[in-house]
């Protein structure tokens, strides 16, 4: 009897069998795998499973406690919703990549040591890049390479940190970091890169908008939230994260104003939302950590819903820019309504899931009397509604008619969106379902009259501001510079340096070489003969002699400790006798 099955098993190994099935059976199988994975998580009891010894290291594949189970629950739910959304996709490679990606994310969540974490961490990067490449256009191939290179660097930094941690402490346990040494900061940087903390965030908004319609739904769920999980695990109460998270929340909001591509706008709001979670990890109190987990949980569902809505628009209209969209609510009303449920959830309207989760983090800031953090996080939440709840839907679905005449997306896409929308409302109405999963005891009541009125005022008056400024808020066919400038333009400058400086210098050396050594070519040929026959011969002779000696010596090796000890003691005796006389 097997007492524990890793939920990643179905996703990672099950994915490899997808090509064996065809048509309807394949569609059923694609939905079955994440369903089995979710079922495994639901049936799992807290405990430590799957412990292996490998080269003297203790690898833990299954640390199941309230924290990892909460994340695993929402990760496998997101995989299931994503699979339903992607059911109609004929490209098998996308299914395989998405499932290996989701499975690795679950693997990282259950990892109890840094080596296991690292392996799944890297697997995530290599699987997810395929979801970007699979769109098979030039822009996505290029963005995918940049994504992969940035994550490779991040992975190396993380690995360096893990190695230093192992050398200095002798432990690879994946728990709260104790000492603030080099390893502490290297691992933190590795985690922050995946959480998209500025200035290490540009990979996200560069690559996600270039991915496939269904791929973006998976991408929006796993990488950043696995990093949030890792931060909660290893860095609770690290004060520097409070400010970094708050800046992150504002950064995403500012750039979302400038974004024209709808999925890039949503990408900047991932950064903004994860900023709240990072800040909450920095606060580190029970309320803040509960808030970070709750927010990650609800965020995965509503952000998935928003990406599904945006993806449906892109698939059915072939357009992805605010400046080219508008007025399509008549043709995609169901998509519009489902998208708006996601929009209200991320904006934290009462009765939607953001209201019961994000507010925990803001309350945690109040509890710690962090005045500025509180004010800035509240400001950022106004920005969230402004873009995700107003600007994007207004200029995509309402606004001026763009001339596109799309239809509603395939039924499976709508079903996936409806499931996510249902969960957003369900959690908003019945938050105790979520609160029971959180790592700490919850003593938080979101539905007080002050909180509801407070939230409604903030949001509705943001709406008033939007409609007053609406003429200036439409998308313009421009892009905005971000940190990726440094490696996109920087690479060009580097290549210029190569062409203008390195190549001429190398050329000069080649000229010198020709003039000085061409005359001596004959000498060179003689040298070659000498090299081949004399030097190589000597080397080969020595090598074979050593080989023969080694063969002879091998006979002496008995493998018995007593014999070695005897020889050592004997040698010592001879040496000491020698030194005496």
């Amino acid at each position, binding site marked *: 009897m097997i007492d524990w099955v890793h939920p990643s098993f179905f996703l990672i190994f099950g994915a490899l069998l997808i090509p064996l099935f065809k048509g309807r059976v394949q569609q059923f199988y694609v939905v079955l795998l994440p369903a089995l994975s979710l079922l495994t998580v639901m049936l799992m009891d807290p405990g430590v499973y799957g412990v292996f010894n490998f080269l003297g290291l203790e690898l833990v594949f299954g640390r199941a406690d309230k924290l990892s189970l909460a994340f695993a629950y929402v990760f496998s739910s997101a995989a299931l919703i994503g699979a339903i959304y992607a059911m109609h996709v004929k490209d098998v490679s996308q299914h395989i990549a998405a499932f290996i990606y989701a499975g690795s994310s679950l693997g990282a969540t259950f990892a109890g040591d840094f080596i296991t974490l690292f392996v799944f961490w890297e697997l995530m990067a290599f699987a997810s890049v395929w979801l970007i490449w699979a769109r098979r256009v030039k822009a996505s191939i290029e963005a995918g390479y940049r994504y992969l290179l940035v994550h490779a660097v991040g992975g190396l930094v993380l690995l360096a940190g893990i190695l230093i941690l192992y050398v200095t402490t002798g432990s690879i346990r994946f728990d709260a970091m104790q000492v603030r040494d080099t390893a502490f900061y290297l691992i933190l940087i590795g985690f922050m890169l995946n959480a998209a903390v500025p200035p290490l965030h540009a990979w996200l908004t560069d690559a996600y908008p270039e991915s496939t319609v269904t791929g973006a739904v998976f991408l929006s769920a796993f990488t950043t939230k696995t990093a949030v999980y890792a931060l909660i695990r290893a860095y609770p109460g690290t004060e520097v994260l409070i400010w970094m998270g708050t800046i992150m929340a504002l950064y995403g*909001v*500012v*750039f979302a*104003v*400038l974004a024209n591509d709808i999925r890039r706008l949503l990408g900047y709001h991932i950064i903004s939302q994860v900023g709240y979670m990072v800040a909450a990890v920095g606060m580190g109190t029970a309320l803040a950590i509960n808030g970070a987990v709750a927010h990650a949980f609800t965020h995965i569902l509503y952000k998935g819903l928003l990406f599904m809505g945006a993806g449906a628009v892109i698939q059915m209209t072939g357009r992805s820019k605010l400046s080219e969209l508008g007025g399509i*609510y*008549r*043709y995609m*009303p*169901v998509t*519009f*309504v489902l998208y708006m449920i996601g929009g209200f959830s991320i904006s934290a309207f009462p009765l939607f899931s953001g209201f019961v989760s994000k507010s925990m983090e803001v309350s945690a800031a*109040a*509890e710690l*009397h962090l*005045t500025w953090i*509180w004010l800035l996080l*509240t*400001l950022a939440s*106004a*920005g969230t509604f*402004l873009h995700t709840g107003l600007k994007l839907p207004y200029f995509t679905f*309402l606004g001026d008619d763009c001339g596109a005449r799309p239809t509603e997306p395939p039924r499976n896409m709508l079903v996936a969106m409806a499931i996510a929308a249902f969960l957003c409302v369900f959690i908003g109405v019945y938050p105790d379902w979520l609160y029971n999963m959180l790592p700490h005891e919850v003593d938080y009541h979101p539905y*007080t*009259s*002050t909180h509801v*009125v*407070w*939230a*409604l*005022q*903030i*949001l*509705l*008056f*943001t*709406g*008033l*501001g*939007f409609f007053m*400024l609406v003429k*200036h*808020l439409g998308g*313009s*066919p*421009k*892009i*905005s*510079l*971000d940190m990726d400038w440094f490696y*996109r*333009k920087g690479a060009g400058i580097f290549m210029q340096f190569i062409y203008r400086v390195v190549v001429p210098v190398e050329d000069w050396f080649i000229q010198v070489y020709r003039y000085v050594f061409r005359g001596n070519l004959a000498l060179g040929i003689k040298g070659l003969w000498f090299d081949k026959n004399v030097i190589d011969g000597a080397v080969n002779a020595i090598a074979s002699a050593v080989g023969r000696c080694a063969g002879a010596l091998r006979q002496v090796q008995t493998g018995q400790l007593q014999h070695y000890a005897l020889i050592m003691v004997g040698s010592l005796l001879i040496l000491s006798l020698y030194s005496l006389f």
Partner: protein
Amino acid sequence: MNTGKILESMMNNTKTLKRIAYVVLALTVVLDFFIERHHHVFFWEDIPGFSAAYGFISCVLIVVISKALGHYWLERSEEYYND
């Protein structure tokens, strides 16, 4: 489609919608004068209508600052990285 019909009739009656919206806005502020306040951390939590003002100011600030950053510094043509 039913949903489409409802939405379309809403879009054809923006004037009514606007009026309803203004009433709701006023209502949230009026309500703020009458609700019971239990515990507070920051002094502004006792000022009725503070969050309405803060929400509005936040919205305008975000738009103005971001647009200025974009206009004077960050915005480029779409072909910027392809040249």
